[in-house]
Protein backbone atom coordinates (compact mmCIF):
# COMPACT_ATOMS: atom_id res chain seq x y z
CA UNK A 1 0.00 0.00 0.00
CA UNK A 2 1.49 3.34 -0.98
CA UNK A 3 0.38 6.28 1.10
CA UNK A 4 -1.67 8.99 -0.51
CA UNK A 5 -2.17 10.84 2.75
CA UNK A 6 -0.24 11.00 6.00
CA UNK A 7 -1.09 12.44 9.37
CA UNK A 8 1.83 12.80 11.74
CA UNK A 9 1.18 13.50 15.42
CA UNK A 10 -1.88 15.54 14.53
CA UNK A 11 -3.78 17.24 17.30
CA UNK A 12 -6.77 19.48 16.70
CA UNK A 13 -8.42 21.54 19.38
CA UNK A 14 -11.76 23.36 19.31
CA UNK A 15 -11.26 25.90 22.06
CA UNK A 16 -10.68 23.60 25.01
CA UNK A 17 -12.12 20.47 23.43
CA UNK A 18 -9.70 17.99 21.94
CA UNK A 19 -11.15 16.65 18.70
CA UNK A 20 -8.05 14.73 17.66
CA UNK A 21 -5.18 13.78 19.90
CA UNK A 22 -1.73 12.95 18.58
CA UNK A 23 -3.00 10.99 15.59
CA UNK A 24 -0.46 9.36 13.33
CA UNK A 25 -1.95 7.61 10.36
CA UNK A 26 -1.18 6.58 6.80
CA UNK A 27 -3.97 6.32 4.27
CA UNK A 28 -3.20 4.36 1.16
CA UNK A 29 -4.78 3.85 -2.19
CA UNK A 30 -7.86 1.70 -2.17
CA UNK A 31 -10.67 2.13 0.31
CA UNK A 32 -10.26 2.91 3.97
CA UNK A 33 -13.15 2.93 6.39
CA UNK A 34 -13.06 5.38 9.24
CA UNK A 35 -15.08 4.07 12.11
CA UNK A 36 -16.09 5.58 15.35
CA UNK A 37 -19.06 6.72 17.36
CA UNK A 38 -20.38 10.25 17.09
CA UNK A 39 -17.83 12.69 18.46
CA UNK A 40 -14.91 10.35 17.84
CA UNK A 41 -13.13 12.88 15.61
CA UNK A 42 -13.95 11.35 12.20
CA UNK A 43 -15.28 14.52 10.62
CA UNK A 44 -12.42 16.57 12.02
CA UNK A 45 -9.91 14.15 10.53
CA UNK A 46 -11.64 14.32 7.15
CA UNK A 47 -11.78 18.13 7.24
CA UNK A 48 -8.08 18.21 7.94
CA UNK A 49 -7.53 15.97 4.92
CA UNK A 50 -9.45 18.28 2.60
CA UNK A 51 -7.82 21.45 3.90
CA UNK A 52 -10.88 22.90 5.57
CA UNK A 53 -8.89 23.39 8.71
CA UNK A 54 -5.35 23.35 9.93
CA UNK A 55 -4.10 21.01 12.66
CA UNK A 56 -3.38 22.68 15.98
CA UNK A 57 -0.15 20.71 15.98
CA UNK A 58 1.36 18.02 13.79
CA UNK A 59 1.37 17.63 10.04
CA UNK A 60 -1.19 16.59 7.44
CA UNK A 61 0.09 15.71 3.98
CA UNK A 62 -1.86 14.65 0.90
CA UNK A 63 0.62 13.38 -1.63
CA UNK A 64 3.62 15.36 -0.55
CA UNK A 65 1.95 18.65 0.34
CA UNK A 66 -0.29 20.05 3.04
CA UNK A 67 -3.85 20.45 1.73
CA UNK A 68 -4.62 23.55 3.79
CA UNK A 69 -4.97 26.53 1.46
CA UNK A 70 -3.24 24.61 -1.31
CA UNK A 71 -5.27 24.58 -4.54
CA UNK A 72 -2.83 22.24 -6.28
CA UNK A 73 -3.66 19.56 -3.73
CA UNK A 74 -7.34 20.36 -3.44
CA UNK A 75 -7.84 19.84 -7.19
CA UNK A 76 -7.12 16.15 -6.61
CA UNK A 77 -9.66 15.76 -3.83
CA UNK A 78 -13.38 15.11 -3.91
CA UNK A 79 -15.17 15.84 -0.66
CA UNK A 80 -18.66 14.92 0.44
CA UNK A 81 -19.44 16.68 3.73
CA UNK A 82 -21.65 15.21 6.38
CA UNK A 83 -24.28 17.93 6.59
CA UNK A 84 -27.44 17.63 4.55
CA UNK A 85 -27.99 21.32 3.82
CA UNK A 86 -28.05 22.44 0.22
CA UNK A 87 -28.94 25.33 -2.00
CA UNK A 88 -32.69 24.88 -1.83
CA UNK A 89 -33.47 26.66 -5.09
CA UNK A 90 -30.67 25.24 -7.21
CA UNK A 91 -31.25 22.20 -9.39
CA UNK A 92 -29.04 19.18 -8.77
CA UNK A 93 -27.45 19.39 -12.19
CA UNK A 94 -26.69 23.09 -11.81
CA UNK A 95 -25.24 22.49 -8.34
CA UNK A 96 -22.91 19.72 -9.51
CA UNK A 97 -22.04 21.71 -12.64
CA UNK A 98 -21.09 24.74 -10.55
CA UNK A 99 -18.87 22.68 -8.28
CA UNK A 100 -17.23 21.03 -11.26
CA UNK A 101 -16.61 24.34 -13.00
CA UNK A 102 -14.63 25.40 -9.95
CA UNK A 103 -12.13 22.71 -10.89
CA UNK A 104 -11.48 24.46 -14.18
CA UNK A 105 -13.85 22.67 -16.49
CA UNK A 106 -15.78 24.68 -19.06
CA UNK A 107 -19.50 25.12 -18.46
CA UNK A 108 -20.41 22.56 -21.12
CA UNK A 109 -17.86 19.99 -19.92
CA UNK A 110 -18.95 20.52 -16.34
CA UNK A 111 -22.60 20.09 -17.24
CA UNK A 112 -21.85 16.88 -19.12
CA UNK A 113 -19.92 15.52 -16.17
CA UNK A 114 -22.66 16.59 -13.79
CA UNK A 115 -25.29 14.74 -15.81
CA UNK A 116 -23.16 11.62 -16.09
CA UNK A 117 -22.47 11.51 -12.37
CA UNK A 118 -26.02 12.25 -11.36
CA UNK A 119 -27.17 9.43 -13.61
CA UNK A 120 -24.59 7.15 -12.02
CA UNK A 121 -25.94 7.83 -8.54
CA UNK A 122 -29.50 7.25 -9.69
CA UNK A 123 -30.75 10.81 -10.00
CA UNK A 124 -31.29 10.86 -13.75
CA UNK A 125 -34.97 11.67 -13.46
CA UNK A 126 -34.59 14.23 -10.70
CA UNK A 127 -31.51 16.14 -11.76
CA UNK A 128 -33.39 19.21 -12.97
CA UNK A 129 -35.45 19.50 -9.80
CA UNK A 130 -34.45 21.99 -7.09
CA UNK A 131 -32.43 20.44 -4.29
CA UNK A 132 -35.00 21.77 -1.86
CA UNK A 133 -37.46 19.17 -3.13
CA UNK A 134 -35.03 16.29 -2.58
CA UNK A 135 -35.26 13.73 0.18
CA UNK A 136 -32.32 13.30 2.52
CA UNK A 137 -31.06 10.31 0.59
CA UNK A 138 -31.33 12.12 -2.73
CA UNK A 139 -29.35 15.05 -1.34
CA UNK A 140 -26.69 12.65 -0.19
CA UNK A 141 -26.42 11.27 -3.69
CA UNK A 142 -26.27 14.75 -5.21
CA UNK A 143 -23.48 15.58 -2.78
CA UNK A 144 -21.69 12.41 -3.77
CA UNK A 145 -22.05 13.31 -7.46
CA UNK A 146 -20.37 16.69 -6.89
CA UNK A 147 -17.51 14.94 -5.13
CA UNK A 148 -17.02 12.54 -8.04
CA UNK A 149 -17.58 14.78 -11.04
CA UNK A 150 -13.99 15.91 -11.49
CA UNK A 151 -12.53 12.39 -11.20
CA UNK A 152 -10.55 13.01 -8.02
CA UNK A 153 -7.58 10.91 -6.96
CA UNK A 154 -8.70 11.03 -3.34
CA UNK A 155 -12.34 10.78 -2.33
CA UNK A 156 -13.13 11.90 1.19
CA UNK A 157 -16.66 10.94 2.17
CA UNK A 158 -18.17 11.87 5.50
CA UNK A 159 -21.06 9.50 6.27
CA UNK A 160 -22.10 9.32 2.60
CA UNK A 161 -24.81 6.73 3.11
CA UNK A 162 -26.72 8.54 5.81
CA UNK A 163 -30.38 8.72 4.92
CA UNK A 164 -30.10 6.49 1.86
CA UNK A 165 -32.75 3.83 1.38
CA UNK A 166 -31.55 0.27 0.63
CA UNK A 167 -31.83 0.68 -3.14
CA UNK A 168 -29.93 3.95 -3.30
CA UNK A 169 -27.44 2.60 -0.76
CA UNK A 170 -26.66 -0.28 -3.10
CA UNK A 171 -26.36 2.17 -5.97
CA UNK A 172 -23.94 4.39 -4.06
CA UNK A 173 -21.84 1.41 -3.03
CA UNK A 174 -21.64 0.31 -6.66
CA UNK A 175 -20.47 3.78 -7.64
CA UNK A 176 -17.83 3.76 -4.93
CA UNK A 177 -16.59 0.33 -5.99
CA UNK A 178 -16.30 1.64 -9.53
CA UNK A 179 -14.29 4.60 -8.25
CA UNK A 180 -11.99 2.26 -6.39
CA UNK A 181 -11.53 0.24 -9.57
CA UNK A 182 -10.70 3.44 -11.42
CA UNK A 183 -7.86 3.86 -8.97
CA UNK A 184 -9.18 6.51 -6.63
CA UNK A 185 -8.26 6.33 -2.98
CA UNK A 186 -11.38 6.46 -0.85
CA UNK A 187 -11.63 7.45 2.77
CA UNK A 188 -15.14 6.98 4.05
CA UNK A 189 -16.40 7.56 7.55
CA UNK A 190 -19.34 5.95 9.19
CA UNK A 191 -20.62 4.92 12.56
CA UNK A 192 -22.64 2.16 10.91
CA UNK A 193 -20.24 -0.67 10.46
CA UNK A 194 -22.13 -2.60 7.84
CA UNK A 195 -21.73 0.37 5.50
CA UNK A 196 -17.97 0.18 5.71
CA UNK A 197 -18.01 -3.59 5.72
CA UNK A 198 -19.77 -3.60 2.36
CA UNK A 199 -16.91 -1.71 0.81
CA UNK A 200 -13.65 -2.64 2.44
CA UNK A 201 -11.99 -4.58 5.21
CA UNK A 202 -9.36 -1.92 5.83
CA UNK A 203 -10.45 0.15 8.76
CA UNK A 204 -9.27 2.80 11.15
CA UNK A 205 -11.11 2.96 14.43
CA UNK A 206 -11.28 6.34 16.12
CA UNK A 207 -12.49 6.94 19.61
CA UNK A 208 -12.37 10.17 21.61
CA UNK A 209 -9.96 11.69 19.15
CA UNK A 210 -7.49 8.84 19.18
CA UNK A 211 -6.78 6.02 16.79
CA UNK A 212 -7.89 2.98 18.68
CA UNK A 213 -6.90 0.51 15.99
CA UNK A 214 -6.09 0.35 12.31
CA UNK A 215 -5.56 -2.30 9.69
CA UNK A 216 -7.51 -5.20 8.32
CA UNK A 217 -10.49 -6.21 10.38
CA UNK A 218 -8.93 -9.62 10.99
CA UNK A 219 -5.65 -8.06 11.97
CA UNK A 220 -7.42 -5.84 14.42
CA UNK A 221 -9.25 -8.84 15.71
CA UNK A 222 -5.92 -10.44 16.52
CA UNK A 223 -4.86 -7.33 18.38
CA UNK A 224 -7.74 -7.71 20.75
CA UNK A 225 -7.49 -11.38 21.45
CA UNK A 226 -8.03 -10.70 25.09
CA UNK A 227 -11.64 -10.34 24.11
CA UNK A 228 -13.64 -13.55 23.64
CA UNK A 229 -14.73 -14.61 20.16
CA UNK A 230 -18.21 -15.91 19.64
CA UNK A 231 -19.00 -18.90 17.48
CA UNK A 232 -22.58 -19.81 16.68
CA UNK A 233 -23.38 -23.47 16.15
CA UNK A 234 -26.78 -24.49 14.80
CA UNK A 235 -27.43 -28.20 15.11
CA UNK A 236 -29.94 -30.85 16.15
CA UNK A 237 -27.93 -31.63 19.28
CA UNK A 238 -27.06 -28.34 20.92
CA UNK A 239 -27.52 -29.60 24.47
CA UNK A 240 -25.19 -32.58 23.99
CA UNK A 241 -22.59 -30.36 22.30
CA UNK A 242 -22.85 -27.86 25.15
CA UNK A 243 -22.24 -30.57 27.74
CA UNK A 244 -19.02 -31.65 26.05
CA UNK A 245 -17.79 -28.14 25.26
CA UNK A 246 -18.23 -27.07 28.87
CA UNK A 247 -15.21 -29.18 29.75
CA UNK A 248 -12.95 -27.57 27.12
CA UNK A 249 -10.45 -25.22 28.75
CA UNK A 250 -10.54 -22.34 26.22
CA UNK A 251 -14.32 -22.12 26.26
CA UNK A 252 -15.43 -19.22 28.44
CA UNK A 253 -19.20 -19.41 28.25
CA UNK A 254 -22.04 -21.21 26.53
CA UNK A 255 -25.47 -19.85 25.68
CA UNK A 256 -28.51 -21.45 24.06
CA UNK A 257 -30.76 -18.72 22.66
CA UNK A 258 -33.03 -21.43 21.25
CA UNK A 259 -33.19 -25.21 21.13
CA UNK A 260 -31.04 -25.53 18.02
CA UNK A 261 -28.52 -22.74 18.55
CA UNK A 262 -25.47 -22.76 20.72
CA UNK A 263 -23.33 -19.66 21.11
CA UNK A 264 -19.86 -20.43 22.35
CA UNK A 265 -17.43 -17.84 23.68
CA UNK A 266 -13.82 -18.84 23.34
CA UNK A 267 -10.35 -17.38 23.47
CA UNK A 268 -9.12 -19.76 20.76
CA UNK A 269 -11.66 -19.75 17.92
CA UNK A 270 -9.45 -21.72 15.54
CA UNK A 271 -9.24 -24.59 18.02
CA UNK A 272 -12.99 -24.44 18.47
CA UNK A 273 -13.60 -24.60 14.70
CA UNK A 274 -11.45 -27.78 14.64
CA UNK A 275 -13.06 -29.30 17.71
CA UNK A 276 -16.78 -28.82 16.94
CA UNK A 277 -16.97 -31.03 13.80
CA UNK A 278 -15.06 -33.79 15.59
CA UNK A 279 -17.39 -33.61 18.57
CA UNK A 280 -20.42 -33.59 16.31
CA UNK A 281 -19.23 -36.76 14.59
CA UNK A 282 -18.54 -38.41 17.92
CA UNK A 283 -21.98 -37.47 19.31
CA UNK A 284 -23.79 -38.14 16.04
CA UNK A 285 -25.01 -34.56 15.90
CA UNK A 286 -25.84 -32.93 12.59
CA UNK A 287 -24.40 -29.41 12.21
CA UNK A 288 -26.52 -27.03 10.14
CA UNK A 289 -24.21 -24.08 10.37
CA UNK A 290 -21.05 -22.97 12.07
CA UNK A 291 -20.47 -19.26 11.95
CA UNK A 292 -18.80 -16.51 13.83
CA UNK A 293 -21.10 -13.61 14.53
CA UNK A 294 -18.07 -11.98 16.05
CA UNK A 295 -16.11 -11.98 12.87
CA UNK A 296 -17.50 -8.76 11.57
CA UNK A 297 -16.72 -5.14 12.14
CA UNK A 298 -19.62 -4.51 14.42
CA UNK A 299 -18.24 -6.89 16.98
CA UNK A 300 -14.73 -5.55 16.61
CA UNK A 301 -15.96 -2.00 17.03
CA UNK A 302 -18.06 -2.93 20.01
CA UNK A 303 -15.18 -4.69 21.68
CA UNK A 304 -12.75 -1.89 20.99
CA UNK A 305 -14.94 0.82 22.37
CA UNK A 306 -16.82 -0.95 25.13
CA UNK A 307 -13.84 -0.88 27.45
CA UNK A 308 -13.98 2.89 27.39
CA UNK A 309 -17.64 3.10 28.13
CA UNK A 310 -18.98 3.78 24.66
CA UNK A 311 -22.36 2.48 23.72
CA UNK A 312 -22.48 1.48 20.07
Amino acid sequence: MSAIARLTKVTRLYDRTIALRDVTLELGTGTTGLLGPNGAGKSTLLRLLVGLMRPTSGEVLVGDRAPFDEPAVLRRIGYCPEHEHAYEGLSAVRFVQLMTELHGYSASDAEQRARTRLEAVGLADAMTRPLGTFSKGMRQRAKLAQALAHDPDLLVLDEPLTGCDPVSRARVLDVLRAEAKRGAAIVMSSHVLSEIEALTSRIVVLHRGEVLAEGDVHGIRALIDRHPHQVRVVSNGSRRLAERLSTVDHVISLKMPDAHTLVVETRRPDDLYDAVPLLAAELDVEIDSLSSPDDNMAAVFRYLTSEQGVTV
Partner: protein
Amino acid sequence: MNEAVIRERGYQAYTGPTQPSVRRVLAFHTARTLLARKGVRRSITLACVPALIVGVIAFVAQKAGAGDDAGRVANLLTRPWGTFFPALIIALIAAGGTLAEDRRAGALSFYFARPVVATDYVLGRLTGTAVVVALASVGPPLAVALLHIVQADAQSVMRALVSFATIAVLGTALSVLLAAYALLGGALAGSRGGAQGFLALAVLVPWVAAGVMANLVDGPWISLLSLPHIIESIAHALIVKQAGLGSIFASLSEQSEPTLPPAWMAAIALVVLAAATGAALYQRIDKLAHAGGDA
Protein backbone atom coordinates in the same frame (compact mmCIF):
# COMPACT_ATOMS: atom_id res chain seq x y z
CA MET B 1 -17.64 -9.72 2.31
CA ASN B 2 -17.89 -7.48 -0.73
CA GLU B 3 -14.54 -5.92 -1.24
CA ALA B 4 -13.67 -3.50 -3.97
CA VAL B 5 -10.96 -4.46 -6.39
CA ILE B 6 -8.25 -1.91 -5.92
CA ARG B 7 -5.85 -0.95 -8.63
CA GLU B 8 -2.71 0.15 -6.88
CA ARG B 9 -1.42 3.29 -8.50
CA GLY B 10 0.06 5.27 -5.66
CA TYR B 11 0.75 8.95 -5.85
CA GLN B 12 0.34 10.58 -9.22
CA ALA B 13 0.93 14.18 -10.08
CA TYR B 14 -2.25 16.07 -10.87
CA THR B 15 -2.80 16.25 -14.62
CA GLY B 16 -6.20 17.91 -14.79
CA PRO B 17 -7.03 21.51 -15.61
CA THR B 18 -4.59 23.89 -13.99
CA GLN B 19 -6.15 27.30 -14.67
CA PRO B 20 -9.57 27.27 -13.11
CA SER B 21 -11.35 30.58 -13.55
CA VAL B 22 -12.72 30.34 -10.07
CA ARG B 23 -13.52 34.02 -9.68
CA ARG B 24 -15.31 34.19 -13.01
CA VAL B 25 -17.34 31.09 -12.22
CA LEU B 26 -18.33 32.43 -8.79
CA ALA B 27 -19.12 35.89 -10.16
CA PHE B 28 -21.28 34.44 -12.91
CA HIS B 29 -23.07 32.14 -10.49
CA THR B 30 -23.69 35.01 -8.07
CA ALA B 31 -25.06 37.32 -10.76
CA ARG B 32 -27.19 34.60 -12.26
CA THR B 33 -28.65 33.62 -8.89
CA LEU B 34 -29.45 37.23 -8.02
CA LEU B 35 -30.99 37.98 -11.39
CA ALA B 36 -33.23 34.95 -10.99
CA ARG B 37 -34.98 36.71 -8.11
CA LYS B 38 -38.06 38.69 -8.92
CA GLY B 39 -37.22 41.40 -6.41
CA VAL B 40 -33.93 42.07 -8.13
CA ARG B 41 -35.46 42.27 -11.59
CA ARG B 42 -38.21 44.56 -10.36
CA SER B 43 -35.68 46.81 -8.65
CA ILE B 44 -33.71 47.13 -11.87
CA THR B 45 -36.92 48.04 -13.69
CA LEU B 46 -37.78 50.51 -10.93
CA ALA B 47 -34.37 52.14 -11.30
CA CYS B 48 -35.08 52.84 -14.96
CA VAL B 49 -38.10 55.03 -14.13
CA PRO B 50 -36.29 58.07 -12.64
CA ALA B 51 -33.57 57.73 -15.26
CA LEU B 52 -36.24 57.82 -17.95
CA ILE B 53 -37.80 60.93 -16.44
CA VAL B 54 -34.46 62.70 -16.06
CA GLY B 55 -33.52 61.61 -19.56
CA VAL B 56 -36.71 63.06 -21.04
CA ILE B 57 -36.28 66.31 -19.11
CA ALA B 58 -32.68 66.59 -20.24
CA PHE B 59 -33.63 65.85 -23.83
CA VAL B 60 -36.39 68.45 -23.87
CA ALA B 61 -34.22 71.03 -22.10
CA GLN B 62 -31.43 70.52 -24.58
CA LYS B 63 -33.83 70.81 -27.53
CA ALA B 64 -35.28 73.95 -26.04
CA GLY B 65 -31.80 75.38 -25.72
CA ALA B 66 -31.99 75.53 -21.95
CA GLY B 67 -28.66 73.74 -21.62
CA ASP B 68 -28.01 70.46 -19.85
CA ASP B 69 -28.16 69.72 -16.19
CA ALA B 70 -25.35 67.32 -15.45
CA GLY B 71 -25.88 67.78 -11.73
CA ARG B 72 -29.32 66.22 -11.93
CA VAL B 73 -27.87 63.20 -13.71
CA ALA B 74 -25.29 62.82 -10.94
CA ASN B 75 -28.04 63.14 -8.37
CA LEU B 76 -29.72 60.13 -9.97
CA LEU B 77 -27.03 58.03 -8.30
CA THR B 78 -27.55 59.17 -4.77
CA ARG B 79 -30.89 60.87 -4.16
CA PRO B 80 -33.89 59.01 -2.70
CA TRP B 81 -35.82 59.62 -5.90
CA GLY B 82 -32.96 58.25 -8.02
CA THR B 83 -31.44 54.83 -8.49
CA PHE B 84 -29.91 54.51 -5.04
CA PHE B 85 -33.00 53.14 -3.42
CA PRO B 86 -33.53 50.29 -5.94
CA ALA B 87 -29.81 49.55 -5.74
CA LEU B 88 -30.08 49.34 -1.96
CA ILE B 89 -33.00 46.91 -2.27
CA ILE B 90 -30.86 44.68 -4.48
CA ALA B 91 -28.05 44.89 -1.95
CA LEU B 92 -30.48 43.89 0.78
CA ILE B 93 -31.61 40.89 -1.26
CA ALA B 94 -27.98 40.01 -1.92
CA ALA B 95 -27.17 40.35 1.77
CA GLY B 96 -29.76 37.73 2.62
CA GLY B 97 -29.04 35.50 -0.33
CA THR B 98 -25.35 35.32 -1.11
CA LEU B 99 -22.91 34.68 1.71
CA ALA B 100 -25.64 34.22 4.27
CA GLU B 101 -27.17 31.60 1.96
CA ASP B 102 -23.79 29.90 1.57
CA ARG B 103 -23.47 29.66 5.32
CA ARG B 104 -27.03 28.47 5.77
CA ALA B 105 -26.64 25.86 3.02
CA GLY B 106 -23.27 24.70 4.33
CA ALA B 107 -21.84 25.58 0.93
CA LEU B 108 -18.58 26.96 2.30
CA SER B 109 -17.32 23.43 2.88
CA PHE B 110 -18.03 22.64 -0.78
CA TYR B 111 -16.14 25.71 -1.95
CA PHE B 112 -13.13 25.63 0.34
CA ALA B 113 -12.50 21.90 -0.06
CA ARG B 114 -11.90 22.80 -3.71
CA PRO B 115 -9.18 24.90 -5.28
CA VAL B 116 -10.92 28.03 -4.05
CA VAL B 117 -9.08 30.34 -1.65
CA ALA B 118 -10.62 33.15 0.36
CA THR B 119 -9.45 35.82 -2.11
CA ASP B 120 -11.10 33.98 -5.01
CA TYR B 121 -14.30 33.63 -3.07
CA VAL B 122 -14.43 37.28 -1.96
CA LEU B 123 -13.61 38.67 -5.40
CA GLY B 124 -15.96 36.31 -7.22
CA ARG B 125 -18.90 36.94 -4.93
CA LEU B 126 -18.17 40.66 -4.76
CA THR B 127 -17.92 41.05 -8.53
CA GLY B 128 -21.15 39.18 -9.20
CA THR B 129 -23.07 41.12 -6.58
CA ALA B 130 -21.60 44.47 -7.61
CA VAL B 131 -22.46 43.89 -11.28
CA VAL B 132 -26.11 43.26 -10.44
CA VAL B 133 -26.26 46.22 -8.04
CA ALA B 134 -24.66 48.34 -10.76
CA LEU B 135 -27.35 47.37 -13.23
CA ALA B 136 -29.74 49.36 -11.08
CA SER B 137 -27.39 51.89 -9.56
CA VAL B 138 -25.19 53.03 -12.39
CA GLY B 139 -26.74 51.59 -15.54
CA PRO B 140 -29.68 53.99 -15.93
CA PRO B 141 -27.69 57.14 -15.01
CA LEU B 142 -25.02 56.12 -17.50
CA ALA B 143 -27.65 55.79 -20.20
CA VAL B 144 -28.79 59.35 -19.48
CA ALA B 145 -25.18 60.56 -19.43
CA LEU B 146 -24.68 58.88 -22.78
CA LEU B 147 -27.68 60.78 -24.10
CA HIS B 148 -25.94 63.97 -22.99
CA ILE B 149 -22.86 63.05 -24.97
CA VAL B 150 -24.92 62.29 -28.07
CA GLN B 151 -26.76 65.58 -27.81
CA ALA B 152 -23.76 67.69 -26.83
CA ASP B 153 -22.36 70.28 -29.18
CA ALA B 154 -18.66 70.92 -29.61
CA GLN B 155 -18.54 73.25 -26.62
CA SER B 156 -20.24 71.00 -24.13
CA VAL B 157 -19.01 67.61 -25.26
CA MET B 158 -16.09 67.64 -22.84
CA ARG B 159 -18.40 68.46 -19.97
CA ALA B 160 -20.67 65.57 -21.01
CA LEU B 161 -17.71 63.19 -21.22
CA VAL B 162 -16.50 64.18 -17.75
CA SER B 163 -20.00 63.69 -16.45
CA PHE B 164 -20.18 60.23 -18.03
CA ALA B 165 -16.80 59.17 -16.66
CA THR B 166 -17.58 60.51 -13.20
CA ILE B 167 -20.90 58.72 -13.03
CA ALA B 168 -19.25 55.52 -14.26
CA VAL B 169 -16.46 55.65 -11.68
CA LEU B 170 -18.50 56.83 -8.71
CA GLY B 171 -21.43 54.60 -9.59
CA THR B 172 -19.12 51.61 -9.77
CA ALA B 173 -17.57 52.56 -6.43
CA LEU B 174 -21.03 52.89 -4.92
CA SER B 175 -22.10 49.53 -6.31
CA VAL B 176 -18.96 47.77 -5.11
CA LEU B 177 -19.32 49.24 -1.64
CA LEU B 178 -22.98 48.30 -1.41
CA ALA B 179 -22.08 44.77 -2.53
CA ALA B 180 -19.24 44.64 0.00
CA TYR B 181 -21.56 45.76 2.79
CA ALA B 182 -24.05 43.09 1.73
CA LEU B 183 -21.40 40.36 1.81
CA LEU B 184 -19.94 41.61 5.06
CA GLY B 185 -23.40 41.44 6.61
CA GLY B 186 -23.67 37.80 5.56
CA ALA B 187 -20.15 37.08 6.77
CA LEU B 188 -20.79 38.60 10.17
CA ALA B 189 -24.37 37.55 10.79
CA GLY B 190 -24.86 34.30 8.93
CA SER B 191 -28.62 34.65 8.90
CA ARG B 192 -30.72 36.44 6.32
CA GLY B 193 -32.24 38.86 8.81
CA GLY B 194 -28.92 39.56 10.49
CA ALA B 195 -27.18 40.26 7.20
CA GLN B 196 -29.92 42.58 6.03
CA GLY B 197 -29.99 44.27 9.43
CA PHE B 198 -26.28 44.93 9.17
CA LEU B 199 -26.69 46.47 5.73
CA ALA B 200 -29.55 48.66 6.92
CA LEU B 201 -27.49 49.77 9.87
CA ALA B 202 -24.43 50.49 7.76
CA VAL B 203 -26.16 52.29 4.88
CA LEU B 204 -29.76 53.18 5.50
CA VAL B 205 -29.45 54.56 9.02
CA PRO B 206 -26.50 56.91 8.25
CA TRP B 207 -28.24 57.98 5.05
CA VAL B 208 -31.42 58.96 6.87
CA ALA B 209 -29.54 60.34 9.87
CA ALA B 210 -27.32 62.46 7.67
CA GLY B 211 -30.34 63.83 5.84
CA VAL B 212 -32.07 64.76 9.08
CA MET B 213 -29.11 65.76 11.23
CA ALA B 214 -27.30 67.86 8.63
CA ASN B 215 -29.93 70.55 9.08
CA LEU B 216 -29.86 70.32 12.87
CA VAL B 217 -26.17 70.23 13.69
CA ASP B 218 -23.57 72.76 12.74
CA GLY B 219 -21.83 71.47 9.64
CA PRO B 220 -22.17 68.47 7.38
CA TRP B 221 -19.83 66.15 9.31
CA ILE B 222 -22.50 63.63 10.15
CA SER B 223 -22.91 62.95 6.42
CA LEU B 224 -19.37 61.52 6.31
CA LEU B 225 -20.92 58.30 7.59
CA SER B 226 -23.42 58.22 4.73
CA LEU B 227 -22.33 56.56 1.52
CA PRO B 228 -24.77 58.45 -0.75
CA HIS B 229 -23.69 61.80 0.73
CA ILE B 230 -20.04 60.94 0.22
CA ILE B 231 -20.64 60.00 -3.42
CA GLU B 232 -22.80 63.04 -3.99
CA SER B 233 -20.18 65.36 -2.57
CA ILE B 234 -17.51 64.06 -4.92
CA ALA B 235 -19.88 64.00 -7.88
CA HIS B 236 -20.96 67.56 -7.14
CA ALA B 237 -17.36 68.73 -7.16
CA LEU B 238 -16.48 66.90 -10.35
CA ILE B 239 -19.63 67.43 -12.40
CA VAL B 240 -21.47 70.48 -11.19
CA LYS B 241 -18.41 72.61 -10.48
CA GLN B 242 -16.68 71.08 -13.50
CA ALA B 243 -13.22 71.69 -12.10
CA GLY B 244 -12.04 68.17 -12.68
CA LEU B 245 -10.02 66.41 -9.99
CA GLY B 246 -8.68 69.78 -8.95
CA SER B 247 -12.08 70.57 -7.51
CA ILE B 248 -11.53 67.97 -4.83
CA PHE B 249 -8.38 69.76 -3.71
CA ALA B 250 -10.02 73.13 -4.19
CA SER B 251 -12.68 72.07 -1.74
CA LEU B 252 -10.00 72.20 0.95
CA SER B 253 -10.47 75.93 1.11
CA GLU B 254 -14.01 76.28 -0.21
CA GLN B 255 -17.28 76.44 1.59
CA SER B 256 -19.07 73.17 0.92
CA GLU B 257 -22.75 72.53 0.32
CA PRO B 258 -24.58 72.87 3.63
CA THR B 259 -25.66 69.21 3.76
CA LEU B 260 -22.61 67.67 2.12
CA PRO B 261 -19.12 67.08 3.46
CA PRO B 262 -16.24 68.78 1.66
CA ALA B 263 -15.22 66.80 -1.41
CA TRP B 264 -11.68 66.17 -0.18
CA MET B 265 -13.00 64.76 3.04
CA ALA B 266 -15.59 62.71 1.17
CA ALA B 267 -12.86 61.28 -1.04
CA ILE B 268 -10.82 60.27 1.99
CA ALA B 269 -13.90 58.82 3.66
CA LEU B 270 -14.66 56.79 0.52
CA VAL B 271 -11.16 55.35 0.43
CA VAL B 272 -11.21 54.59 4.16
CA LEU B 273 -14.64 52.95 3.94
CA ALA B 274 -13.63 50.85 0.95
CA ALA B 275 -10.38 49.75 2.59
CA ALA B 276 -11.97 48.99 5.94
CA THR B 277 -14.90 47.10 4.42
CA GLY B 278 -12.63 45.14 2.08
CA ALA B 279 -10.23 44.23 4.87
CA ALA B 280 -13.02 43.24 7.26
CA LEU B 281 -14.69 41.15 4.55
CA TYR B 282 -11.50 39.33 3.64
CA GLN B 283 -10.59 38.67 7.26
CA ARG B 284 -14.02 37.30 8.01
CA ILE B 285 -14.18 35.09 4.91
CA ASP B 286 -10.68 33.80 5.54
CA LYS B 287 -11.74 32.86 9.05
CA LEU B 288 -14.92 31.17 7.81
CA ALA B 289 -12.97 29.33 5.10
CA HIS B 290 -10.72 27.77 7.69
CA ALA B 291 -13.32 27.06 10.32
CA GLY B 292 -13.94 23.61 8.97
CA GLY B 293 -16.83 24.49 6.70
CA ASP B 294 -19.46 24.55 9.38
CA ALA B 295 -19.28 28.18 10.33
